[in-house]
């Protein structure tokens, strides 16, 4: 398979590069300055693309790769890939579900506790020597709070399981009700937000779910409510979120994703009721290796004419 050209769109991990190099002809897209030239010169033998949550095979790229047969994404979300075009052209698409479910769920709960109990703020309080002058403020209890999950897929369910261990009551909003699940279902997301204290976004990004968390939902959640986003930045109307936080219409937020990563609205930097991390949902040593292995497994399966392990298209 070492004559199969695999185009890697952005830096992911040296382990993945190493493994791709062993099996295929690896081409790195991100350091190239004149990308159009590069694609013209190499399009004849690029048969696969590897991207992630930041960089996907969009319409333009697919058009410039006439020999493209498979897109293997190092992510579970495939919102950056033009799936319609892939279907039309018979291009296969694979992602990395399951291996990252636990990590993202762990982070969601970690962000919720950190936001309510002001763990990061307390850490800064101690590091800046403020404890010598006064006690740290009272914070808000996490256990027993009502948790509303947007999207009860693999990740949403894993989050729910963890929240249950803290005595939280669970409710959810999803495209359709899950009949084998006991949590309360709300077909209207406003009602979900009205009836919970912690709203956690864990659904996939589609046309329907873009800005699903808008001003109305934020207001329904209210000044004591918090939002945890481990989905995609575009799930939340970021401008509305920032103004709600600044005006006190929303109690707080724990955010792993933003609309224009790596840019984060600077007005958030001064707030003590938010926790901000840099899209690290699956960023553990263990999971990154598992994700890279799954990308490789899918590519190998394809080029050896075997069944794909985790295909989306």
């Amino acid at each position: 398979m070492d004559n199969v050209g695999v185009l890697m769109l952005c830096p992911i991990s040296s382990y993945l590069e190493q493994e791709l190099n062993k099996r295929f002809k690896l081409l790195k897209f991100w350091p190239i300055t004149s990308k159009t030239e590069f694609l013209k010169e190499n399009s004849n033998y690029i048969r696969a693309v590897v991207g992630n949550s930041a960089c996907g095979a969009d319409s333009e790229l697919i058009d410039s790769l006439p020999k493209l047969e498979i897109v293997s994404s190092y992510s579970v979300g495939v919102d950056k890939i033009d799936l319609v075009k892939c279907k039309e052209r018979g291009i296969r698409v694979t992602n990395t579900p399951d291996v990252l479910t636990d990590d993202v769920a762990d982070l969601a709960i970690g962000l919720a506790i950190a936001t309510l109990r002001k763990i990061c703020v307390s850490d800064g309080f101690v590091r800046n020597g403020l404890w010598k002058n006064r006690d740290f403020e009272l914070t808000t209890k996490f256990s027993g709070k009502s948790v509303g999950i947007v999207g009860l897929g693999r990740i949403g369910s894993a989050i729910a399981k963890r929240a249950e261990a803290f005595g939280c009551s669970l409710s959810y909003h999803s495209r359709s009700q899950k009949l084998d699940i006991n949590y309360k279902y709300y077909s209207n997301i406003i009602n979900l937000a009205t009836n919970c204290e912690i709203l956690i976004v864990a659904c996939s990004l589609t046309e329907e779910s873009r800005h699903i968390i808008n001003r109305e939902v934020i207001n329904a959640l209210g000044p004591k409510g918090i939002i945890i986003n481990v989905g995609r930045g575009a799930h939340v109307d970021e401008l509305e979120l920032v103004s709600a936080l600044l005006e006190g219409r929303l109690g707080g937020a724990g955010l792993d994703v933003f609309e224009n990563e790596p840019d984060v609205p600077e007005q958030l930097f001064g707030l003590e009721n938010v926790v901000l991390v840099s899209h690290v949902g699956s960023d553990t040593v263990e999971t990154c290796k598992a994700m890279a292995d799954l990308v490789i497994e899918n590519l190998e399966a394809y080029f050896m004419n075997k069944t794909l392990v985790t295909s989306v298209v």
Partner: protein
Amino acid sequence: MAESKHLPKVLLLGPPNVFQIHGKHFSQRFQFLKPFESPIPTDQFLAENCGSVQAMMCSGDTPVTSDLLRKLPAVRIIVTSSAGVNHIDLTECRRRGISVCNAGTVFSEDVADTAVGLVIDVMRRISAGDRFVRSGVWPVQGQYPLGSKVGGKRVGIIGLGSIGLEVAKRLEAFGCKISYNSRTKKSSIPFAYYPSVLELTINCDILVICCALTDQTRHMINKEVLYALGKEGVIVNIARGAIIDEKELVACLVDGKIAGAGLDVFENEPEVPNELFDLDNVVLSAHRAVFTEQSLWDIYELMSGNLEAFFANKPLLSPVIDG
């Protein structure tokens, strides 16, 4: 004030945070004698006002020594706002038949939440990552270093009382494998028991300290235990600072002998070893594991409930010693 004269008298030391916040509520049920508000020296205050006082309320910070108790010949109950009772001379209390009531299980959930929050923070670098984003360097420096998966890790809990059990229940849901060390094995508990702290530590990746501070547990986490925890190991302490040999802990963290630590308590609060401030693999909290609005209300209800039970000759709600 005339309306409080018929209320039972309680000597108030500290005062504990819960009194600072719910003092009005407390004062509707009891008449408090407050030496800290008096201009005269405490000893004199006690001698003049507390000769017949039967009840005392204090915090975890106010030492109740045999010396102090000698000045209070009529005291029969001490109600502390803390879960820990290491600040009270329990031997002297037993000798005199003085009941001691603590916070019972009122704080257990909040403390467990903090413990789990610290575990996730250290493993997944949440506080360090938050600093990274706020510093504005994400666009410049690219991704933050990888963290460590929580699920599947072996968690060793020291002290499987109310708090330890709540921690175990939570971390089990994350896919962690729970084992513990306690003074006695709990036969009804399904988790693996290790008879020594060292053996427990050798067999776990994350050590969570949930036990009481006693003469036996002071500096129980020493160099040997820390070395056994190892380069990939993480320690979280929400119990008492003195359970860990803090000098050794700092040395191990600075030298990379253990992977990280989440600490809510320290040996000489509010003093915290400065060397920790340079480390990104450490999360520091200002002994607030119990302090939520909810828990402060709950402890107010428990403490006043204990005092009311005492004055009405009814069973105490959360006795550590039932004099």
